[in-house]
């Protein structure tokens, strides 16, 4: 996709200056090492890394980007256009759209990362056990996955999130649990097939011969060799979970009360789209860019780890 020659021309001398070439010749490169060399040349990878860093910075330190308070709203400012003090104008409540958009990154990132980690843990346990033990355990666990896949995602999420959210909370925990509990299936499937393909390798037999138990075999031998595609799936899941959070918040079963979320901003602004477009457009762009950044990142990593797919 990208033109590798252009980048290598710049980057090639750098490794030669360091100790790397010497090491390379004695030691065969690992899969990860190969992938990293591939990734460094991929422009899409660098674009997504820059986007992700900016968004993370926004989530951790929003006051770096704006000095306005997203909750200080004056009705007199209702639907005022963009100006030097409020770059994106004001929304229906007279809140600064730029400040609200910047502060919205935090909830998206928190929900996205935590729910993806939860899905990853559940998926890893399911996938490892189903793949490693096989037979009866695999049949039961795989049927469990089938049942989860029998419920179209958003339908399940609406019902579950509505169930978990409590009266006075901002809904962050509820949405995190909902997304984590409903999205682990793809991770589990990838893990299962990776484990099945690596469990019959010689090094696993060697480990078993040396007396390693199932736990040690799974965690120290099989897992590290099955992890690459699993991480790729999680990176992409992180993007889609952020989108799902916004969708749930939009429908009114996600973040609520005074939580700041791009989904809520979009839902509040869309009825007034005829009057003021900025409160609708900017959160949409930020949301799409965030999701895009994580999906591109996952895509680039997958290409690097699995050149066959190109």
């Amino acid at each position, binding site marked *: 996709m990208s033109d590798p020659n252009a980048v290598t021309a710049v980057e090639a001398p750098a490794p030669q200056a360091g100790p790397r070439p010497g090491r390379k010749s004695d030691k065969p490169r690992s899969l990860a090492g190969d992938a990293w060399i591939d990734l460094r040349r991929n422009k899409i990878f660098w674009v997504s890394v820059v986007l992700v860093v900016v968004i993370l910075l926004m989530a951790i330190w929003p006051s770096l980007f704006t000095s306005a308070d997203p909750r200080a709203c004056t009705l007199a400012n209702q639907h005022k256009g963009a100006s030097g003090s409020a770059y994106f104008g004001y929304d229906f409540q007279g809140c600064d759209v730029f400040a609200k958009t910047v502060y919205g990154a935090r909830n998206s990132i928190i929900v996205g990362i935590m729910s993806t980690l939860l899905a990853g843990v559940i998926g890893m346990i399911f996938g490892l056990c189903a793949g490693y033990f096989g037979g009866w355990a695999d049949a039961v666990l795989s049927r469990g996955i089938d*049942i989860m896949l029998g419920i179209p995602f958003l339908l399940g999420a609406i019902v579950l999130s509505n169930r978990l959210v409590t009266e006075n909370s901002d809904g962050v925990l509820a949405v995190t649990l909902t997304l984590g509990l409903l999205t682990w299936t793809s991770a589990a499937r990838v893990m299962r097939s990776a484990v099945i393909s690596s469990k019959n390798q010689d090094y696993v037999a060697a480990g078993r011969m040396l007396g390693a138990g199932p736990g040690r075999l799974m965690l120290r031998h099989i897992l590290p060799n099955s992890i690459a595609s699993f991480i790729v799936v999680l990176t992409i899941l992180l993007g889609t979970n952020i*989108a799902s959070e916004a969708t749930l918040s939009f429908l009114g079963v996600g973040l609520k009360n005074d939580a700041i979320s791009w989904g809520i901003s979009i839902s509040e602004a869309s009825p007034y789209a005829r009057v003021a477009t900025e409160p609708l457009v900017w959160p949409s762009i930020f949301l799409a860019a965030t999701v895009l950044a994580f999906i591109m990142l996952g895509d680039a990593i997958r290409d690097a780890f699995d050149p066959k797919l190109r």
Partner: protein
Amino acid sequence: MFRYIVRRLLQMVLTFFGATFVVFALTFANQDDPLQALAGERPITESQRIALTERYHLNESFLTQYWYYMKGLLTGDLGTSLTGQKISAMLANAWPVTLKLALLAIVIAATIAVTAGVYSAIRRGGLFDNVTLVATLVVLAMPIVVLAPLAQLIFGIKLGWFPPTATRDASLYDLLLPALVLGSLVIATELRVTRTSVVENLRADYVRTARAKGLTRRRVIWVHVLRNSLIPVVTLIGVDLGGLMSGAIVTEKIFNIPGVGFNIARAITTEDGPLVVGFVSVLVVIFLIVNLLVDLLYAALDPRIRYE
């Protein structure tokens, strides 16, 4: 093949009960006081409360309630919503427009995805291929909550090319914009799968044979290669349907289309448990049946695939 069908049917029965049970369990546990939700702001007298509790089996045990629910679902009686309307009647009212919307979305998505997929596969690495690859990434990353309001704003309100909302008796033209939005959910994956499998098939021996026989390039690609490449695309339809159902909730809410998704969205805000469970269960059943059919179709389409 027969054994495969039987096994697949047995699997579906299990998935069916599992999925409906999960949905029922979640909604059942969700209601804090459905009777008060039904009455709204008005107070309920004790006798009304007793009568309503009796009527909706609210004092029965959880499993008994699930039993009543399954009995109703299997006999086509979905019960009444808390507003007193028959759920089956509401569904009968709502599904035509949703079906129209979904079919339109599938047709649009499949047409664009297959054509563009084949072209980018033929000129792999070319400008068109690179542009579509980036475009599919962008479309994949566009959440429907972004796409639907923006499309409505740009094409419905600012440019005025399409009506920004649609009614129950909407014409195909009225539904075109929402269908495009809905179709975008599945277009990217369909395009990528088509492209990958066409690329793979172009290297196959039968392509060389066909060319050696003197067939035109056009015929080889659009008949021989495409037929073989569409098999994995067909399987996507089953998975895509779940995405379309989810997408329909947001799309119908934004474009004000009184279909199934719109009813679900409204039932959530009015805490109408029976209505949500009724609609969602029917959708889950449809989803499972379509997936079963797609699996069987897959086996029939490609005789090379053998299921034991």
